[in-house]
């Protein structure tokens, strides 16, 4: 009975998301037509009705949400290079929307991850303090620099992320012989229940000072480019600091809810938030993620991962060329 109940609940959950998804599209298109119908059809510089790009944005972010889950990357890292490279929106608005997309995903996942014990608040808090201060600095720098410089740097960063994804290894249970002094003072250790193994796993971390220094760089990049920083958080938490992979993935996702909040406020206060971009993107990527989770059972992760790296590489090159004016 419990199973049936859970299944029913899940079905309602999916129905709710599908409803939101179609609501978003159908809200944009008919109102777009209605408003255009008041006079001559208004078009943008590319010759499209005003609602054309937000609708396309919704569908692209929906697909992006699927690939993000299947490829094991956050939505933000795909969003900024792809939308800034192939859509008419200025990079300032794309970065603002990118942060809110990553933030919404992290906020949605955060409560469950914390309650399950997979995300560790104690591990996240010191890291988040450093990363959020640096994300603010990154946002200020990113908004002060000329667009082409940011676009070039974004292109280089995205291409570097591709190499990082290709080269980085993961360690499910890193061998941490002894906690370092700082993590002992901060009492960063824990226990979680690993369902796949059916046992409780105790964990602790090491090399905390090195990890915290690396989060300075991660924070600056997250704020500067409006990227969610899961691609960097996970290797640092897992490979450098020695947190188990599941703890690293979950804490990284939760961490984005803090880091991206600080940078998002800077973009929000600067006026870089356009609701007509933000809402279709958030609903699109969240709906796509729901579908992605369902497809995860049948998809071939290695192939999808290669595909995501390919798409990212292409978007990175496009961003680089756009920045260079080519």
């Amino acid at each position: 009975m419990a199973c049936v109940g859970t299944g029913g609940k899940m079905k309602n959950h999916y129905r709710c998301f599908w409803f939101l998804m179609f609501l978003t599209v159908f809200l944009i298109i008919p109102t777009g037509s209605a408003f255009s119908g008041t006079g001559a059809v208004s078009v943008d510089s590319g010759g499209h009705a005003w609602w054309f790009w937000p609708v396309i944005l919704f569908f692209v972010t929906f697909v992006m949400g699927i690939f993000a889950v299947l490829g094991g990357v956050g939505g933000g890292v795909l969003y900024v290079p792809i939308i800034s490279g192939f859509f008419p929106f200025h990079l300032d608005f794309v970065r603002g929307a990118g942060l809110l997309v990553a933030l919404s995903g992290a906020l949605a996942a955060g409560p469950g991850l914390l309650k399950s014990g997979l995300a560790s608040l104690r591990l996240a808090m010191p890291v988040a303090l450093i990363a959020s201060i640096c994300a603010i600095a990154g946002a200020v720098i990113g908004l002060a620099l000329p667009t082409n410089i940011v676009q070039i740097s974004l292109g280089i960063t995205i291409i570097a992320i591709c190499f990082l994804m290709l080269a980085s290894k993961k360690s499910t249970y890193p061998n941490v012989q002894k906690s370092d002094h700082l993590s002992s003072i901060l009492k960063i250790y824990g226990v979680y229940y690993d369902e796949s193994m059916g046992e409780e796993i105790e964990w602790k971390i090491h090399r905390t000072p090195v990890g915290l220094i690396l989060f300075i760089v991660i924070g600056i990049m997250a704020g500067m480019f409006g990227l969610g920083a899961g691609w960097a958080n996970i290797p640092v938490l897992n490979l450098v600091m020695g947190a188990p992979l599941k703890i690293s993935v979950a804490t990284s996702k939760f961490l984005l809810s803090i880091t991206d909040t600080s940078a998002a406020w800077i973009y929000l206060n600067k006026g870089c938030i356009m609701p007509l971009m933000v809402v279709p993107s958030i609903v699109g990527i969240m709906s796509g993620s729901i579908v992605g989770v369902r497809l995860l059972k049948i998809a071939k992760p290695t192939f999808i991962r290669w595909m995501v790296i390919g798409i990212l590489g292409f978007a990175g090159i496009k961003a680089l060329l756009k920045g260079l004016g080519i």
Partner: protein
Amino acid sequence: MAEIKTIDESVLENQYRYASVLGKGMYLGLLALLATFTIYTLGLLDSYIPFEKLSSCWNMPVSEYLHLNHVPQGWGWIKLVGYGDFLNFIGISILSGTTILCYISIIPGLLRSKDYLYTFIAIAEVLVLVIAASGFIAAGGH
């Protein structure tokens, strides 16, 4: 593994409290965002920047866009919240402000358990986020 100590009950308590506030804030923010977006796109309230005009300036740098449309920076949007487009900022602000409330909610628990180091971290994080939200940090334009 002998080094592992028992997880303090108060640590879990704070984690659950944080999760609970985070969950409520997230739902409230998303709900507000969808409700206000519906009002905006259905045209139930006038838009400060008409859709047609918006599509002709979303490819501009933000400074140019703000200047052209006379859009205020920082919390100036509150004065324009009667317009459909700026109404959406209520949901966006709730989503962006939830983390601040989460941190505030765990400070009493941290103090009760005499966890002064994490109390300091939590207060520092609240200050950082409040300063970011305040609009006092001037970001340059281009």
